[in-house]
């Protein structure tokens, strides 16, 4: 039944494209997204701990041992749920799209379908197919409907959008090229009989092969997860994308990368994490290298966010920082760290969605500026209090206040790090502090700015009020982060047994604690 999340999205895309009117396209798209969310929720309700559900498994290209194998374990289900939430919220927040509406929702739903597909695929080839299906719609979503900073108009605006879109597409495609090479190599080395993830995870790849295949595939996926120094597509892409697309990019697409790192690179090539047996500049294994890169991402992303003048870039860089926690969690190789990493994928997906919704939809679409200095005199907290409250809550979730999902996730990552790589905790802590600083700065500047000099610069048009779809979308996302924050077992009970499943046996055998 979970397979219908994919089909419903693709069918929804077709329906939205052929819809007779804009309103019909919106409603159809919303229905498709809701159906996906409902399907994941039903699956969640029926889930038994540690279950592995095979949805479809039929031979697809028997000549090469490729199966059409859709299945889900707890990790997949967590991310499916996230996709459902983000898709629904995304459509609610793009209710005001008037330009080529039908096509917008068609591309949007193709992207969603691809994402569902990646999370459900248990055949490496199939996973890759869905992974690439997601690239092209991203390009068009940004290039056609993207937003641009103030001052850029006409030609220049188009050029900026297209630059960001092309950069994102090329980064993604370059990353997936690495993955493709690794995939073909894995297929060859394992005898060319199967590409099933279950089958390959049981196959003992030679250690020297894993030693180069692991970093190749890991980096290939980590590009999309925004790993420093391959993160530069993320802020420009997020900032140039239309609101719903930034929500999806930060919320879900970056998770594709992180999911691939875990599901493919780490699950299939666990020996790639073993020590090299020698040290270069203090690095003794790929694990050290990637952990340090993740750490740099955390601190660097937060620090750069602190000095941005553009509201959307603040959030864009904060994504880099938060995704650093995911990668750091993966590199701890502890159960609690990995659990935290997966939880952080979910949590960041929801929170980033919320933040981008406030920035892109609630603020930018009304004020038509993203410059912090221009937003400051507008006294937005009085004008659109709903946006201010949402941003405060989202900001609290983002900096890891207890009670929100961000806390549970980042705390687990830090505990895992403490056990595995103790000295890194201090630096990650600095990252968190800077995170608090930039969130505070953005909040105070945008919503509680200096009152303008009397009479001058008062907005001549009152801003349009917050619409119902926006409220619904915000409530959905807020509810998700609060529920998981207050009762994290709802997800950890899914994730932990999956990490202990036979699929990850190779990983647990290594330096696991």
């Amino acid at each position, binding site marked *: 039944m979970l397979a219908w999340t994919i089909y419903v999205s693709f069918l929804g895309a077709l329906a939205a494209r052929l819809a007779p009117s804009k309103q019909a396209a919106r409603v159809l798209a919303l229905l498709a997204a809701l159906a996906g969310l409902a399907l994941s929720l039903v699956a969640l309700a029926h889930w038994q701990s540690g279950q592995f559900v095979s949805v479809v498994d039929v031979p*697809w*290209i*028997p*000549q*090469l041992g490729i199966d059409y194998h859709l299945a889900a374990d707890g990790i997949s289900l967590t991310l499916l749920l996230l996709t459902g939430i983000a898709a629904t919220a995304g459509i609610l927040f793009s209710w005001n799209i008037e330009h080529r509406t039908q*096509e917008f929702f068609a591309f949007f739903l193709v992207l969603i379908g691809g994402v569902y597909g990646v999370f459900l695929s248990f055949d490496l*080839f199939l996973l*890759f*197919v*869905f992974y*690439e*299906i997601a*690239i*092209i719609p991203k*390009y*068009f979503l940004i*290039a*056609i409907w993207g937003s641009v900073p103030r001052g850029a108009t006409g030609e220049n605006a*188009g050029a900026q959008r*297209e630059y960001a879109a*092309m950069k994102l*597409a*090329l980064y993604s*495609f*370059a990353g997936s*090229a*690495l993955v*493709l*090479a690794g995939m*073909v*190599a894995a*297929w*060859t*080395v394992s005898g*060319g009989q199967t590409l099933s993830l279950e089958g390959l995870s049981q196959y003992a790849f030679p250690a020297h092969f894993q030693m180069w295949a692991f970093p190749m595939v890991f980096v290939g996926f980590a590009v999309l997860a925004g790993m420093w120094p391959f993160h530069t597509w993320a802020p420009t892409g997020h900032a140039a994308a239309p609101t719903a697309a930034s929500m999806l990019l930060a919320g879900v697409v970056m998770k594709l990368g992180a999911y691939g790192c875990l599901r493919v690179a780490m699950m299939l090539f666990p020996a790639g994490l073993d020590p090299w047996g020698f040290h270069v500049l203090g690095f003794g294994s790929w694990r050290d290298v990637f952990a340090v890169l993740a750490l740099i991402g955390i601190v660097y992303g937060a620090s750069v966010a602190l000095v941005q003048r553009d509201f959307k870039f603040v959030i864009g860089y904060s994504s880099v920082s938060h995704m650093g926690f995911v990668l750091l969690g993966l590199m701890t190789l502890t159960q609690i760290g990995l659990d935290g990493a997966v939880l952080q994928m979910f949590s960041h997906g929801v929170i980033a969605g919320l933040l981008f919704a406030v920035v892109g939809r609630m603020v930018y679409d009304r004020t038509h500026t993203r410059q912090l200095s221009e937003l400051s005199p507008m006294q937005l907290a009085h004008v659109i209090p709903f946006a201010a409250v949402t941003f405060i809550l989202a900001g609290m979730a983002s900096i890891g206040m207890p009670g929100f999902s961000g806390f549970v996730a980042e705390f687990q990552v830090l505990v895992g790090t403490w056990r595995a790589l103790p000295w890194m905790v201090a630096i990650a802590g600095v990252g968190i502090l800077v995170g608090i600083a930039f969130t505070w700065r953005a909040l105070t500047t945008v919503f509680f700015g200096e009152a303008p000099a009397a009479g001058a610069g008062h907005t001549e048009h009152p801003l349009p009020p917050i619409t119902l779809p926006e409220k619904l979308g915000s409530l959905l996302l807020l509810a998700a982060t609060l529920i998981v924050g207050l009762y994290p077992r709802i997800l950890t009970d899914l994730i932990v047994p999956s990490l202990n499943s036979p699929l990850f046996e190779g990983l647990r055998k290594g330096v696991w604690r």
Partner: protein
Amino acid sequence: MSIVRYSELLRLTWPEIAVTVAALLLLAFDLTVLRRSTLKVRLRAGMAVACAGCLAAMFLLNHAAQQASLPDSMLVITPLTHVVQIALLALAIFTLLLSASTRFTGHVGEYLALILFATVAMMFLVATENLLLIFVALEFLSVSLYILTGFDKQSRQSAEAALKYFLFGGMSAGFLLFGMSLVYGLSGSIELPRIAAALSGPGLDPLLVVAIVMVAIGFGFKVAAAPFHLWAPDAYQGAPTVSAGFIASSSKVASFFIFAQVVVLALPAAEGRGGFRNYSPGWVPVLVIVAALSMVLGNLAAIAQTSLRRLLAYSAIGHAGYMLLGIIAHSPRGLSALIYYVITYALAALGAFGVLGTLESEGIDHIQDLAGLYRRAPGLAVCLLIFLLSLAGIPPLAGFFGKFYIFSAALAAEPHLGLLWLVLLAVAMSAVSLYYYLRVLKAAWVADAAQERPALRIAPITRVTLWLLAGLVVLLGCMPSVLLNLLGPW
């Protein structure tokens, strides 16, 4: 020399005969009955006759023996050649259908007949294992293509393209013939399997190395691989669109197939190694160099193009590089991958040229002229999207599986992972290629035209053909096993 039984010859060449008869009938009709008719009627009637001939040939092929041969390997029919011949006929039909809106010439009978003659030449080319017949068929094909290139008599560019194509082609034929004569001198035979038997001894004759290089140059020209590609951009740009599409699709399929047959069947012992560390002389290292050059040069040069046709030409050079990987793999899987790749490539390339043809009749040639296409002709924009993304290798389109299959075949070649560096290069270059394909799609899908232009008028027959091609590209991408089942027992 053994005796040829003419009844046998007749029985085995029925499909080729059908196409030839269709071509002759078409010429005769055009000269007699249709003499006073309008261009449109002549075109339609000619097309009908030609397509009927191709369909009859396909039907005959379907019912002919799957495994047969004539003495001296003059004609060797295997299930594989069947598949390739059917693909060639299908491509010919699509080409004929796309020429429905041809306006540039009054000599429609000759034009359509030439397409059929070239198809006959290709059908013979793929079904023979005799060096002499290979050369004759190849020259027959080339001459037909030279004429097709220069068919637009009003256009200087067309004449220039034909002359360039002809001069380079003639020279490369010389190289090929020289190489073949050396092979004959060394082995004393012109049959591919016997050559292999005669040359199976240990060690590599220096003369054979010369022969290999000559043959590689000759075929490298035919498949437009760098550094023998210089004719391609000009020929693609100057030739009438349908001719260019035909050169890019059908002739690629046939040339690649016979190229693979020659080196694999005749020179299996002289393969050598193309690995990064374990290098040894033979045809594999020669082709490795050609492949690497084509991939890099074709893809990088395509970035700088502003003319759609030249862009497609350079991308074709890049694709020739990927396809060579299938030959380099030197395995049954490699051959199967090569055929899959080249057929799906041909479908997408022909489709892209079909779209171009429609656009050019509206005066659109440069990338920026495409602006607003999504509004002026939404269907055409979707077709263009499918064809170009298939060429770029985006799933679920056929081009993606082709790439995956050919890369995996290359890596699985003995020694395992020996060609990893080349595959990595190929993968990197295919990432580069996405850039220029996306640039075209950006113009068609993202940009709005400076001023509102009317919707494009597209002939219904062209529309149907393009959708058929697009459908095939999607189908072969989603269900590659349809074609794979025919290409080899796995």
